């Protein structure tokens, strides 16, 4: 018996046609509904934030499921859903080269300016 071990990262299924968190060959039921990521804006003027994921047959159902699963307690005023397969994630193995170079560059924060006293609320 040949066992293939595939290491997957969250959302890292760009080549998949079916979407979902499980690669196609391991899906028990090929008719299973795809996975969707849900983003909620909690009030006007704020950004949509990732809230979680759910299964749905199509975008319309995904919005309604998101409404039922994630906004039952007045969590939001607007919903986005996107099929998980369309989200591409950075690889945790690349963390050193991607994020560490920023660590010694604190001057990129605009905190080194002397502000005149007259300017408030900066």
């Amino acid at each position, binding site marked *: 018996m040949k066992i293939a071990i595939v290491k997957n990262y969250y959302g890292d299924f760009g080549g998949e046609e079916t979407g979902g968190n499980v690669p196609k060959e391991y899906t028990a039921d090929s008719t299973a*509904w795809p996975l969707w990521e849900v983003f909620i804006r909690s009030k006007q003027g704020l950004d949509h934030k990732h809230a979680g994921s*759910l*299964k*749905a*047959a199509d975008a*319309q*159902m995904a919005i*309604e*499921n998101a409404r*039922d*699963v994630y906004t*039952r307690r007045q969590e939001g005023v607007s919903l986005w859903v996107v099929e998980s397969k369309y989200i591409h994630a950075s690889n945790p193995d690349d963390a050193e080269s991607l994020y560490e170079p920023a660590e010694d560059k604190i001057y990129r924060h605009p905190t080194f300016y002397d502000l005149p006293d007259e300017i408030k609320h900066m």
Partner: protein
Amino acid sequence: MDQQQLIDYTLFLADTNLILAQRNAEWCAHGPILEQDIAITNISLDLIGQSRNFYQHAAILLGNGTTEDSLAYLRAEREFKNLLITELPNNDWAHTVLRQFVYSVYAQLLYTQLMGGNDKQIAAIAEKALKEISYHIKWSSEWVIRLGDGTEESNQRINKAIDNLWPYTGEFFNPAYYETAVKQLDFAGLQDSWTQKVTSVLEEATLSFPQNVFMHSGGKQGVHTENLGYILADLQYLQRAYPGAEW
């Protein structure tokens, strides 16, 4: 409209919501998929909320220490005035979504008429409920279309649901003694608009409904199918066995 008719009418609205809520709640932890389990139980909670509002109103009209709880938990089968269609078993998902669809379309039209009525409290409850009802129609009509225009199996199931449930839709438009007293209700208009809306969704779902079938009625008058006794046994057991129990 005399006081007794107003009380009976309010109880009809309350009972119909409560029994349909109880049936939908039976799906809790048995839904076809987690997300839809939550969707159907959310709808159940909406209906319980509507029934509570109507029971509270009826309790005030009745007085004598009547409460929403005594109305829900301590009345017998023949005193319940819910529509027969609400007490039928859930059967499968197709039956459940079709019942919700035909009922919600009826409820939307009915509550819209009730908003213009003399009883300000019923008008206010109806207005609040309509927001929930329009979501129930959206949710259930999409399921009817999905099943009708889906696979061979789903089409068979929704067709079976239509055959089984259709004979219970006539009761919507067959006024009980207390309904004829509600002046603003236009049953002919209700039936026309209902038929139009339901037909348009069924057509989109590649479905049609049977013509000239025998229509059951009786629920509005307290004459029920054998199902209601079992529902009440489940619903009322605790308050009957331990009167006044709280948690």
